[in-house]
């Protein structure tokens, strides 16, 4: 299962979480198999135009991502992820990507519901 985590540079398990998926420095992609981290790599973000928040949604879905761990997101991209079959979990309380991934593996993350959505035309 491929999961994506918006991250600060340089990405990877030791990187800080990027607190907004649409404006992060880089994505960390983690392949989970049998409850353990199998592979870690990074993925560059794509340009984000005002009102164009579906582009990163489609981008990650096309990369094979099935789960996103996020700290912040607007309502539209959240609905978009749900509609393209990517599960989103709230991981805004974790300082690092690795901590969020470990919490996900241990089943400690809540689904990212509308109450977690943040706003801003920047989202």
């Amino acid at each position, binding site marked *: 299962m491929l999961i994506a985590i918006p991250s600060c540079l340089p990405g990877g398990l030791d990187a800080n979480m990027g607190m907004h998926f649409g404006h992060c420095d880089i994505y960390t992609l983690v392949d989970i198999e049998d409850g353990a981290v199998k592979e870690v790599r990074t993925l560059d973000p794509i340009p984000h135009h*005002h*009102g164009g928040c579906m582009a990163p949604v489609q981008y990650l879905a096309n990369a094979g991502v099935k789960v996103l761990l996020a700290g912040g997101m*607007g309502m*539209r991209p959240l*609905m*978009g992820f749900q509609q393209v079959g990517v599960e989103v979990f709230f991981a805004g309380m974790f300082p690092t990507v690795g901590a969020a991934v470990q919490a996900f593996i241990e089943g400690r993350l809540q689904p990212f519901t509308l109450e977690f*959505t*943040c706003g*801003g*035309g920047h989202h």
Partner: protein
Amino acid sequence: MDILIVTPRADFWNGLNGVFEKRGASVRTACAMPEALASLKEKKAALAVLDLFGGEAWSGAEHADAMKKAVISILMQDAMTNTASVCGMGDETFHDAMEGLGMICDLPAQPSADDVDDLLGRLLVILGQA
């Protein structure tokens, strides 16, 4: 690209047909949200222009609530549909009131040909067709 305009004043928008044609856009209209949602269900649109108040002056909270409700109803059906409002609410209000909805912009209550052309230009960038 297909564009749906939700408006009680189709005649006003007919006067802007040339702008859409110049950008290669095909336009259909719906007079209210129920018809708009049914139309979008039948055929997707690249953009829904929400002219819900037919050029009325921006009322503040009442209009904002109605607009948010309309946008959310579209997103729940298909989040890929881009949206723009026609309210003249101003940039700061637009940012605060419509946050998180991923709208392209708000047009003046009486949009000009230039306003519409600017919106279509932004849409083309988002669609990767600019």
